């Protein structure tokens, strides 16, 4: 079920009041049933895959807790193999198969291995990682094994974050299923406000700019210069609004029912370095890789070359997590290289900026934000392009024919009419103005302190704006669903 559908609105309006109406002891059952329904709308049969890993991880958790010595590790490995195995079959099999065949053909061996023609279960990487974090935390002794099978299943399947995160940790969410939630006016209102802002990001901004992005990225070889630049910039905005919009709706929906999910985005395009960007972008995944991979590899408490290696491997795998394609691997690797270069040149840059008296100036901050944003956009090209040759073509042709291509920008049809362009620019302006102000003051608190009439007027205005300028006809899914 898509958050940006009438189906979800109806689902939410039924599930939430019944949740509050039910006695506390039955609420988790209701939420679990609702979550199953939510997931089965995509493709019902795939709930069996989810069920398989849930059963394995539930028992693995219990046995890890009960066991001592090397047996604990064995149960953890069984759980990890089950989860990674599902990922390997459904997400990576064809990719590995294709590349293995290519390699064998190159060395003169002609073996045909079968290709799996199956759809990737929606949100597989998200709930697999959430499930793995449970058994790892039980193994590390940070979390007690969950004895109630239904509650554990709900931990994996909780509908707001089931298909696109935030990827939760068991310490944060499991205990909340036991807490008796009451209907709190302010919390419900805050949750709804966050959901509305998420809808604004997705329907008003992401889906409209996505029309232009699709027009260019679906046939990049027709363009040079400006259309490629504009499409790449707009994609950076689209993916941010699409994904952070989803997170806002998920966090807001959970908040309405009394659950606190972790923050997933923190105005990432205002970051002044790549490392800062990764602390503010898809926080739940970045911290997952940090906690369970990067630190396990030794983090930065090792010799320099090994630290760089740890950074690179972490980001390479983060790229692979996103998709079984060389474009995603390159995207991850590129971010890894950025971070290594950032760490490698840090002291030199600090000395240089001190020497030219720019250290701690607003100019340097703005310049750093611009450089960071440009580097992130270059990496996004690989993330969005259909294949590697398209990405390379786009990179090579961005600086080509700039003068002529600027005319194409105005004359060619990119799926938006003049009104569409005006709405896109207006909505981007609103988005970044709000984010800029949010960096200095909390708009939530400002609104909260206004008189009732003004508050209601503002809420109505935001909803009416979504209805008035939202892109409802594009039927665009959330980008991160495919992962």
């Amino acid at each position, binding site marked *: 079920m898509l958050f940006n559908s009438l189906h979800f609105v109806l689902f939410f309006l039924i599930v939430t009041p019944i949740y509050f109406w039910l006695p506390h002891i039955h609420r988790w059952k209701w939420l679990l049933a609702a979550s199953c329904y939510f997931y089965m709308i995509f493709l019902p049969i795939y709930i069996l895959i989810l069920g398989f890993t849930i059963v394995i991880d539930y028992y693995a958790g219990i046995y890890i807790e009960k066991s001592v010595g090397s047996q604990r590790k064995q149960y953890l490995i069984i759980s990890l193999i089950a989860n990674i195995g599902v990922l390997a079959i459904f997400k990576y099999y064809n990719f590995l198969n294709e590349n293995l065949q290519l390699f064998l053909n190159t060395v003169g061996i002609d073996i045909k291995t079968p290709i799996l023609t199956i759809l990737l279960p929606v949100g597989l990487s998200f709930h697999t990682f959430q499930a793995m974090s449970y058994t790892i935390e039980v193994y590390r002794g940070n979390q007690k094994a969950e004895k109630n099978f239904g509650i554990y299943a709900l931990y994996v399947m909780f509908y707001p974050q089931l298909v696109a995160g935030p990827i939760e940790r068991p310490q944060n969410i499991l205990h909340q299923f036991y807490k008796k939630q009451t209907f709190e006016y302010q919390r419900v209102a805050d949750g709804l406000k966050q959901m509305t802002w998420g809808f604004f990001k997705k329907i008003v901004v992401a889906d409209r700019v996505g029309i232009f992005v699709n027009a260019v990225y679906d046939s990049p070889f*027709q363009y040079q210069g400006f259309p490629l630049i504009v499409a790449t910039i707009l994609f950076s905005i689209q993916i941010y609004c699409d994904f952070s919009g989803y997170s806002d709706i998920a966090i807001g929906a959970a908040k309405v029912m009394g659950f606190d999910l972790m923050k997933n985005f923190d105005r990432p395009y205002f970051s002044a370095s790549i490392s800062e960007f990764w602390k503010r972008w898809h926080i739940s995944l970045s911290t997952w890789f940090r906690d369970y991979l990067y630190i396990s590899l030794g983090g930065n408490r090792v010799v320099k070359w090994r630290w760089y290696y740890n950074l690179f491997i972490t980001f390479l795998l983060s790229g692979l997590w996103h998709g079984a394609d060389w474009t995603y691997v390159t995207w991850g690797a590129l971010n890894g290289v950025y971070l290594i270069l950032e760490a490698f040149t840090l002291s030199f840059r600090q000395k240089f900026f001190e020497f030219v008296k720019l250290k701690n100036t607003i100019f340097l901050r703005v310049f750093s934000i611009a450089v960071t944003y440009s580097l992130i956009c270059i990496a996004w090209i690989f993330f969005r392009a259909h294949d590697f040759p398209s990405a390379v073509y786009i990179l090579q042709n961005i600086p080509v024919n700039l003068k002529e291509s600027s005319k194409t920008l105005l004359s060619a049809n990119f799926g938006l009419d003049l009104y569409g362009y005006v709405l896109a620019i207006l909505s981007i302006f609103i988005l970044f103005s709000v984010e800029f102000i949010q960096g200095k003051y909390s708009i939530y608190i400002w609104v909260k302190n206004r008189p009732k009439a003004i508050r209601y007027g503002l809420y109505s205005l935001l909803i009416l704006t979504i*209805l008035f300028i939202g892109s409802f*006809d594009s039927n665009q899914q959330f980008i991160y669903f495919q992962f």
Partner: protein
Amino acid sequence: LIEYKTFFKNASIIGLIIVLIVLAVPKIFSPIISDKNVYAASTIDKENRLAKLESPKIVIVGGSGSAFSINSKMIEDSLKMPVVNMAVSYGLGLTYMLEESKNGIKKGDKILLFTEYYLPVEGSKKLLTLINDLNPIASEYFKFSVSDWIKFRVFDFQRVGSSLFYKTKNTEINDPITLRSSFNEYGDMTAHLNKPNRRPLKDVEKLHKTLYTKELAELNDFVKFCKKVGVNVYYGFPAFPATEYDENKKAIKYFEWKLKKNFKGKILNTPEANLYPENDFYDTIYHLNTEGREKRTQYLIKLLKPIIK
């Protein structure tokens, strides 16, 4: 419970205000948003011709590819049988196109189905809202759910914005290919004829294999209906740029295979017989220009001659 009641009351007030505004604004601005000359209104003219023509007649059904790429007068003159081109846009959806044609066909008519490779069953809600407003009987041609009704009201609300914007700027959406008056009396789009090609060519993207289950079921229901009335249905593949064929061959051949296996009407030709040089296309991979349209029409006449006899 008190908090619950207060919340419910306040949320209802906000909800009611929003609903009233969404419903009232299009009514207030209705003289501004009703534009009788947009291309969607051409369905009225096409339906009138369909109803007026004597049978047997040729009825062309399809997306904009057929509207741009066929000279119906030439077919009518050559085959001595009246022709009406019902094609407007694939955005109307198969259901709309087929239901609309059902309304005017009689025994002996020939239906030529020329859809694009992308053939959605349900149309664009935005386009259907527009048509619903302009064409009084349009709502009979598509399934109308509660959620559609809600979407229609929202699209009406949105149209106030775009109409006001273009009125304030004192410009129409003046691309002639978006106007009702750009279709001739046969139902063919003519505004693009003898105009320079528009580049880059639009809709160039890799076609994907889909199951076509709903689409074929819809087509076969239509064939069944036509058989009962005594009307023959023929399917023809769309004009497509030869330069894009290799890239899309797998998906196109798969579609052809599915059609051959399941379609209950007659298939007229092959995808390969409908490939044209890139230079014969006007603005998208389905819209032929003057030369391309001429070539295609002559080809269709040859193809149809044995059937009409």
